[in-house]
């Protein structure tokens, strides 16, 4: 084989360099807005910092405080309670946001004619901001002058007593979240091989059998993606309880993100807030890995 000429070598080097240039903008933003904050957060978790003055290295103190090994345990209790509330939200909201959009997508996929209208109708809430959604539902849920209680002639304390406050948050979050996942499912449904469905129909499979044995397995990867994304976004729940219930009644809907936010920005304890974020992130990672393992069990990926 002939060795490369000088010109060919230069052109190859340029090609490599220019392809690198294409990723530079992404890299810059990734480093500036993801990597640097991540490293900063990990470092600050071992520091004390009020946002204005010198950063002081305090070792494991933040973590000891959060595990109740220091102090009275009040802050530890408030933090873990908020984590529990987040876990409750994840445990109920994630399945809702996985099953409901699938059913909706299935219906829309089946009825072609009205499908477009319903697709728009169900997708519409997802383009609204969390503040807008909360204000809309606030007028629906108000106990004494709200639309829901007026409509059903009921007297349900939607936002001021448990378990209704949680139920309100689930209703709102589901209404808001169905559209996004529905679109992903619709894309997945249109990729289910038609020949398999036809073959199954010829073999006498009913709709239920086709769904269980063909549609669902074909949509495995869409499902995994939706599961992961929904779980992670459920962990990050913040706006809904912050605006709709302000964490009440009696802090029962104060979720972890609210506790972290208040510690950092209300209380100016950035180090402790970072330690809280690290702990929450660890829980999220554990959750994600477990659910991924369970989903892909027995497969070589």
């Amino acid at each position, binding site marked *: 084989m002939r060795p490369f000429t000088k010109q060919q070598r230069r052109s190859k080097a340029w090609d490599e360099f*220019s392809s690198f*240039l294409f990723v530079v903008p992404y890299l810059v933003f990734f480093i500036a807005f993801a990597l640097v904050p991540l490293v900063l957060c990990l470092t600050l978790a071992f520091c004390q910092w009020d946002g204005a003055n010198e950063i002081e290295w305090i070792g494991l103190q933040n973590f000891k405080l959060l595990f109740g090994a220091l102090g009275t*345990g009040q802050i530890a209790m408030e933090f873990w309670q908020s984590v529990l509330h987040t876990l409750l939200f994840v445990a109920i909201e994630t399945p809702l946001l996985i099953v409901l959009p699938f059913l909706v997508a299935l219906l829309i996929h089946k009825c072609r004619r009205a499908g477009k209208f319903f697709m728009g109708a169900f997708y519409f809430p997802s383009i609204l901001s969390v503040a807008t959604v909360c204000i809309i539902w606030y007028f629906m849920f108000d106990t*004494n002058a709200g639309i829901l209680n007026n409509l059903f002639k009921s007297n349900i304390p939607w936002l001021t007593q448990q378990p209704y406050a949680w139920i309100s948050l689930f209703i709102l979050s589901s209404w808001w979240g169905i559209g996004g996942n529905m679109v992903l499912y619709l894309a997945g449904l249109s990729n289910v091989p038609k020949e398999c469905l036809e073959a199954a129909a010829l073999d006498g499979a009913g709709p239920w059998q086709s769904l269980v044995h063909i549609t669902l397995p074909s949509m495995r990867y869409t499902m995994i993606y939706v599961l992961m994304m929904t779980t992670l976004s459920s962990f990050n729940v913040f706006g809904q309880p912050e605006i709709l219930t*302000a964490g009440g009644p009696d802090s029962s809907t104060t979720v972890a993100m609210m506790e972290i936010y208040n510690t950092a*920005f209300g*209380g*100016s304890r950035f180090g402790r807030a970072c330690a809280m974020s690290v702990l929450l992130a660890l829980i999220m990672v554990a959750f994600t890995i477990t659910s991924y393992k369970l989903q892909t069990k027995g497969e070589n990926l």
Partner: protein
Amino acid sequence: MRKKCLSLCLSAAMLLPCIAFSACNPGGDPNISETGEVTLRFWNGFTGMDGDSMDAIVADFNEEYAGEIKVETDKMDWDTLFTKLTTTKSNLSTAPHVVAMSNQRLAGIVDQDLLMAIDDLPEYLGVTQSDYISSAWNAGVIGGTRYSFPLDIHPTAMFYNKDLISEEELPSTWEEFVEICVEKTNTETGVYGFAVPSMYSITKDIFASILLQNGGALFDAENNAVYNSDQGDAALEFLSDLVYTYKVSPENVGAGGDYTLFMAGRSVFYFDGPWLLNTFDLIKNGDTSHIGVAPMPGATGENGISFSGSHQLTLMKNTVTSERVKEACYTFIQYIQTHSLEWAYAGQVPAYLPTLESEEYQQIEALQPFTQTALNAQLGQSDYKYFYEGYNYMGVAVSNAISGKYSAAEALDRAVRSFSNWIIDNEY
């Protein structure tokens, strides 16, 4: 060759944002030159209709001092303001010089070493304590040093629906208040005396006022939370009795639920601050409105007390670094003070007494109930850095008692215990 040109162009296009990105960061301290116009950045959280009045004052100031001083206003909600304020040390090019803030947040910001001592400001303005509502004046002094200057006081007053109650029937004590509420409550028509919100909001301010009127205190001289005293228990029991014993309020009124019912003509009274005067259009068209306003019961008269907040003006230590800038800030504050009538039209009670005594001010009828209340205002411990947190724990207790979760005494005891533990933890 063509391909090469194309890749070169694309690479250049991709690099552009990076270059632009790096060019956006001027960095460094924006030292204001020794001569020429001084530009001041003024941050406040007046995002409602009051913000328009403040903007008008600033615009007039800029016109009058054109070529000498220019004030640039940055409005944001209060939470954002305090969030951004803590990080201003590292970015002086956008940091403010003058900041308006609530007296309740003052001590926390002083604790972060962000504010400049302004002991010589009263002398510069040629004013003394006797020119100001004393509670607002004193709120700016922390540990013997003045860090802020009073702008206004915003007490809670009682709005009422003129279709449901006449002026003669208005209560001036809480006993009369209960009586008239019982009389006006009609479950058939769905009209209540006063919808007590069980979520935080205004209820904790009403609770604090009744507690102070009962002779109690929120914090003692050593800054220990003492709102679980007998006076506190009685105040909170009174509020929860409105819901469960006298039944003049529906149960489970959420945050804002009181406003919704009042606007729907389903409650006689509604409590809120003076900023609502413009929302209800009471300053200009008070006579024709079906909504009236009166002082909170127990807030006026010789022994009247109301728990209130006060907006204060502060100077930031890191940006006000030269005498010239400081003088510009002082000139600006002086201008706001002498033009505080404009601020009154925004629906605020200026803390400057000559304004309150002026004929024009006294013609603003809707503000007078607030003014009477403001003169008897108590502002809580503005010099205690955990006041805001302690007040919030108290808010949870008030909410828990009104929603029926705990008895008044138990709710308050729990709040004091949690808050005391939280302080110990927070010091780590």
